[in-house]
Structure formats: C-alpha cells, structure tokens
C-alpha cells in the first residue's frame, strides 16, 4: 500500500548554514493519527514546511524526498500537493486573512478552481464539520480564539486534504475549547499528523508518536510506549506535566 506520507532521508540546511534536518524517514498510512513530538528547535516546523513544499531542497541545501500518496513534492506538482496536504498553522490570525469566515474557507478551494454552488457546498460542509456553520458571515477577528482555531481547521478541510497537519493545535485554548477541538479532530475521517508539546493531548488523540530531536527521528512507536519510556523522555527534553501519569490511565480509554 502506498503511504499517504512518505519522507525519505530528508536533510535540510537553512541558507544561513543552520542544519535543521539530518536525514528524516517517516511513513504515515491512510487513516493514522500520528503525533510529532520533540523539544523546541528539534526541526518539527522545518519538517512540516517540507510536507507541502514551502521548503525543499530547491530553496536551500537539502536532500532526500517527500511524496504524498505517491506524488513527489516538486515545483511542478505544488498545487496538487498543497491540496493533498492541509496545514493548520499555530496562530489562527496568520491563517485567517479574509474579511469573512465564508470567504476565508472558500479561499483554498477557489484557488483549486472550484466555483459557484460547488464552492458554497464545500465551504458549508467544512464549517459544519467544525461546528462553525452559524458564523459563516462574521469577520474572523470578531470570533473567540477557540472559534478562530476551529475555522482555521475548516479552511484546510475545505480543500479535502489527504492528510491534515496541525501545528500545536491545543496551544492557548481553554480546557473546554481544547476538549471541543479534540472531539472534532477525533470525528474527522482524515489522516492526521499533529505537531505538539502537549503530551496528554497526544496520548488522548494519537495512537502513534514520532519523536524528532536534533533533526533526527529518535523514536517511533505507540504514544503510550513513548511517554512511559523515561530514559528516552529525559534524553530528549520531553516532560510530562506535573501530576500526569499515563500508567494510571485505563488502557481502554486510549485511542486505538
């Protein structure tokens, strides 16, 4: 089976010489929900920006390859790659730049050439999936932070991506918004890659975790195994929040 995401031997150095990735291999298969963990500066964002070709060997010094459902990430395939890989950035104010929620969600599919009634249907479906259909005509800056994050997810869903990539989805959310977002993400029928420092959130949502450290993949296994491997956690500056112990959580309540 062709993996949705096939990253092979990816290395990348920024033009200033900083080597961010040293040969990363990563495969994600259809329907998987994977957490990408790692300390600050591990190269997580650099890796994410390679997935849709914002960064590539062509823009800096790099080698290796990225393919999405068998289609290699190259300049020629860029539009199709960006349809297949939907990235939700950390700050919704960066992602929502149009005058209304509806226009913002329509931005991506309209760039793909979808028009008229089909566009309207896509927009409302995407908003419906994140529970924001009632807010279609509001300007994004009038929404709460949690609502803006959900609209940001909808902007990407409207492109019907094969893989949804989320950068720190739980940051700055209050506990209720955090849970609502988790419910929404669990209910989506898409492959998911989630970059996060929020380890309980990773455990709650993603059966599998990949640890990136110093530009290399240092662990790839079930989230439960990764979080309970004390030596690994210590070696890569990963820490569970105070009072949180995955071992006392019932195995049945974990996503599988």
């Amino acid at each position, binding site marked *: 089976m062709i993996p949705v995401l096939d990253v092979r031997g990816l290395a990348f150095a920024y033009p200033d010489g900083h080597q961010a990735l040293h040969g990363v291999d990563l495969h994600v298969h259809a329907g998987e929900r994977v957490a990408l963990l790692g300390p600050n500066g591990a190269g997580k964002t650099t890796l994410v920006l390679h997935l*849709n070709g*914002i960064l590539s060997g062509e823009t800096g010094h790099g080698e290796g390859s990225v393919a999405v459902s068998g289609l290699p990430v190259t300049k020629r395939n860029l539009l199709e790659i960006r349809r297949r890989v939907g990235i939700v*950035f950390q700050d919704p104010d960066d992602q929502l730049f149009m*005058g*209304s929620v509806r226009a913002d969600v329509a931005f991506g599919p309209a*760039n793909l050439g*979808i028009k008229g009634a089909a566009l309207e249907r896509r927009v409302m479906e995407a908003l419906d999936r994140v529970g924001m259909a009632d807010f279609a005509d509001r300007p994004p*800056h009038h929404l709460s932070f949690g609502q803006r994050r959900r609209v940001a997810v909808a902007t990407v869903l409207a*492109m019907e991506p094969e893989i949804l990539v989320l950068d720190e989805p739980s940051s700055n959310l209050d506990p209720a918004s955090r849970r609502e977002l988790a419910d929404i993400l669990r209910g989506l029928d898409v492959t998911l890659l989630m970059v996060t420092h929020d380890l309980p959130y990773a455990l709650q949502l993603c059966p599998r975790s990949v640890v990136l450290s110093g530009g290399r993949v240092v662990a790839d296994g079930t989230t439960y195994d990764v979080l309970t491997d004390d030596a690994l956690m210590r070696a890569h500056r990963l820490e569970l929040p105070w009072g949180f112990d995955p071992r006392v959580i019932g195995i049945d309540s974990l996503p599988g």
Partner: protein
Amino acid sequence: MGAGHGHRLHYHAHSPVHRAPAHLKILLLLGFVLTVVATPRQWYPAFAVHLALLLGVIALARVPLRYLLPRMVVEVPFLIFAALMPFVAEGPRVAVPLGGWEVWLSESGLLAAWGLVVKGTLGVLASLTLAATTEPTDVLHGLQRLRMPDLLVQIMGFMIRYLDVVTGDLGRMVTAMRSRGVDPRSPRHWPALARTLGALFVRSYERGERVHLAMLSRGYDGRLPGDAR
C-alpha cells in the same frame, strides 16, 4: 483579546447614502474633491456652496456631525502648517488686529492659508462621510469595480483585516511597558516607546511572512480568487 468590534469610522445607519453603490460614492467623492481643489481660492461663495452640498449629503445620511467632527483631528498637522504660512510667506503685509496687538501678516500667506484650510477641511469631511456610510469591505468592492489594480486592492484588504491585530499587539506591548513603570506620555520614556514601535514593525513584518506561508499552503498564486470574496 483587545480586538475592537467594528471599524471606528463606519457609522451604522440606514439611509439612501448608506445604500448607494460603493463605486458610485467613490466616484462622487473623487469628483467632489477634484472640484474643490480646482476652485480658485478667492471664489469665497463657491466654497459655501461646496459646504452646503456636503452638509446636505451628511444630513441625508443621518450621520451626526458630533460623530464626524472629532474624527477630523487627522487634519491638525495640515492646519498647523497653514497657520504658519501668513508668518513666513513673502509679499505685501497687512495689519491684523489680534487681541489688542497689531500683527503684520503676509497677504499672499493669508490667502494661501485660507485655501489650504478650506480645501483640506472639505476634503477630509467628504472622505469621512464616505467612510461613515460605507463598510471598508464595500469600499474595496467598489474600487475593484472601478478597475483599480488588483494588487492595490489586495494590499488595502489586508490592511483592514490586520489593523485590529496590529493595534491589539501595540496595546499589549504598551500595557506590558506600563506594568514595568513606563509612562508613554512622558518624553523621558519616548526612546523606549520608539523601540516598541520598532519591535512592532518587526513583528508585523514576520506576521506578514507567516500569512504569506499560510496563503501559499492553500494554493495562492498571486491573485485572490474572485469567488472567495
């Protein structure tokens, strides 16, 4: 946090002026301003006609003057410049009684100052009337219909979208400075304030780059898709 609701220039009301198509209003504003600027400054009655016309439109729009007048402070730097002109301009001088004193002012300077004040004020008041009766997004649609280059319309659209975000940023930075004992009004702290503005510029610039990344990620190719507006 801190994002103001609605735009501070728009006055919500229902009137024929509010309902008129935006591109028509923009054209009328442009025509009006050009006429005012082209009117020779000695034609004093003509300016009274201009003003009456403008006040008529404002009354029709049901925008209270109390709402428009405080917003005319943007004009103050020009007024200061105009007030200086009679003192610095060349030419024959006339005596003007000023609180018991007689001040000798340049005649051509006085005339130039009058021209600047009356034309500037009419222009600003007319522009404010457009802003008060038309939502910013409608102004953009209007400009688009008038075949304004797409790139300029896009830039203005982003300006409107991010105005609140950037003022919010600035507000938080100033609050953080106040919390550490800085008084933005005191000239002693202006250097710190200037550095804050520098930081704000860098932040906004970086946000611009992130927004551009987010746009590229959704297939942006240099023009906003017509259907997404």
